[in-house]
């Protein structure tokens, strides 16, 4: 199979208007991927599927990623000449900028006919709140159907052109997207026998008022049923 750079170059000659970007994976797996832009993603996917040298006819996996917005501090070192004629000073200038977050859909596509793959494709939404539409690749690869529904359910990416975009795991009236980083689970932490970490913080809100003699309670722990709350 061609390398990802060769595929990108070939795509750019075929689709000059497309904005393509290689997303490199610095880890030992080195699974680099190709970031598509939403406008031309459908055409490019069709080309990848039907091209005789690539023949990527099978999408094995589609999943989502949530990238929340984060604050980045840029540090720039500047040398300032001393007006009195002494040695130059080095001043650090820190500028803060907010990198906007986005939602991402990732597709792993293989060729069953030519027995190669995977080629990893990514698409990113403009932001995480209102511009969350991406083109659906279900018309290209049929196996994306349920997986795109799952991404819609858990991350909230709206796939344009999907034949049947409904929630997959949660019920229809559910409002949240549970796999997003800022999802807050319902507060039903009233009975946690051994809480720790974040669960402990949430369980503490449900703890009854401290007993009169805590040292006695600590030596002889007793489970007592709590009466109905007034």
């Amino acid at each position: 199979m061609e390398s990802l750079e060769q595929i990108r170059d070939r795509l750019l000659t075929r689709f000059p208007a497309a904005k393509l970007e290689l997303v490199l994976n610095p880890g030992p797996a080195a699974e680099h991927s190709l970031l598509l832009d939403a406008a031309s993603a459908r055409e490019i996917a069709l080309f990848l599927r039907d091209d005789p040298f690539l023949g990527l006819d099978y999408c094995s996996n589609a999943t989502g990623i949530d990238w929340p917005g984060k604050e980045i501090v840029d540090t720039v070192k500047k040398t300032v000449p001393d007006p009195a004629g002494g040695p130059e000073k080095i001043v650090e200038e820190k500028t803060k900028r907010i990198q906007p977050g986005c939602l991402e859909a990732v597709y792993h596509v293989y060729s069953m006919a030519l027995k190669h793959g995977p080629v990893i494709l990514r698409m990113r939404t403009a932001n995480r709140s209102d511009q969350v539409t991406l083109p659906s690749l279900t018309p290209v690869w049929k196996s994306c159907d349920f997986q795109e529904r799952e991404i819609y359910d858990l991350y909230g990416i709206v796939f344009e052109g999907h034949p049947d975009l409904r929630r997959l795991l949660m019920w229809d009236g559910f409002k949240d997207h549970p796999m997003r980083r800022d999802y807050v689970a319902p507060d039903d932490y009233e009975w946690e026998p051994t809480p720790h970490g974040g669960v402990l913080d949430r369980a503490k809100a449900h703890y009854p008022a401290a007993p009169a003699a805590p040292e006695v309670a600590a030596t002889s722990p007793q489970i007592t049923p709590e009466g109905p709350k007034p």
Partner: protein
Amino acid sequence: MSDPSSTRAPDPFPAAGNLSDAEREDLRRHGILLTSLEELYNWGRSNSIWPLQFGLACCAIEMIAAATARFDIARFGAEIFRPSPRQADLMIVSGTVTKKMAPLVVRLWNQMPEPKYCIAMGACAISGGPFKQGYNVLKGIDRYIPVDIYIPGCPPRPEALLHGLTQLQAQIKGERMSGPDTARHLRPEEPSEFPIPDYGAHDLEPPRNPDLFQPPSLPRKA
């Protein structure tokens, strides 16, 4: 688990109550079987518990294994898994109850006729298990329906399920048909059906049945 011989008050039934166990055993050796209606009723019920045939997760595989020849749940008369709740006596909640599934489980429970019993099989059905803090897992089926037997395990072995079943049989054999400690299903004031939770915008509504489930409070250090 209530032991029938120890918790029993002096028997109000003259048919069996005036005879000691030794005398009855003596009569049985001569071919005369004396019993009470209550005993016969409980003997029949406890040895033909028909479970509802449904499984929710991997615990269901162990439940199926309990029905196979190696473990053979038929030894205890509970091999007739019914596909309809109308014909079932026992609901084995075998596995993870998701919040999407919970209203359907409660609905099935409401459709079962009395007397009916519930076994919560495995960590998930008891408390949510390893998925307790998940976004779509109910933290124990006892938040919505009454549970008679809890079988811990992840998943419990078929032997554990059979042990739970024999414990349930012992419970049934100790039930009374009349008197102050009448069995639950013979007391008209005890509810047989429970409210089915609705799918809300963020969670099931209500998140638990307050008449049925109150969280125990552990005294803790501040």
